[in-house]
């Protein structure tokens, strides 16, 4: 969604491969976008968990909840990846025969 414009597409097509500056730019912006997307996603999720009725300011309890929410979300993500990796390893004989 982030690069709808075709002008950057044609620029990357011709110049991207040869132009390290453009390449670098694309890498940096992609990384920034991944960050932004996660912030959007976590704000949405944590709002549901941490916000009751919107008041005149964000009280310290809600603020703490948001911080915890972010940390636990990342923990969850890492946990899932780690466990998936473990279950893949224990099934390695099976998956090796599949990849033949």
């Amino acid at each position, binding site marked *: 969604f982030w690069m709808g414009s075709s*002008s950057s597409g044609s620029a990357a097509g011709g110049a991207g491969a040869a132009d390290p500056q453009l390449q670098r730019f694309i890498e940096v912006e992609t990384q*920034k976008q991944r960050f932004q997307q996660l*912030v*959007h996603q*976590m704000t949405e999720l944590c*709002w549901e968990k941490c916000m009751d009725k*919107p008041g005149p300011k964000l009280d310290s309890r809600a603020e703490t909840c948001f911080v915890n929410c972010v940390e636990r979300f990342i923990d969850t993500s890492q946990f899932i990846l780690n466990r998936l990796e473990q279950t893949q390893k224990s099934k390695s004989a099976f998956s090796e025969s599949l990849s033949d």
Partner: protein
Amino acid sequence: MESGFGSDFGSAGGAGGKLDAGLIMEQVKVQIAVANAQELLQRMTDKCFRKCIGKPGGSLDNSEQKCIAMCMDRYMDAWNTVSRAYNSRLQRERANM
């Protein structure tokens, strides 16, 4: 790690006729910023509608409008808090690598 803001990348194509990569990069940054603003607005509208509007009436009454206004500010506070917390976590992860 570069911040990437401003014109770290100036005009790459100085010679006449060459594609101005610097200009394209600036334009892409603007498009990205616009897209992010739209995303924020969309989610904020969704959340604040849910929080503030009960049974939809014939118009938005005063209490609903006040609620929406507060909700917008709180959503921005939340967004900033999440952004800071996530950034801190990322830096901590990098420091531990």
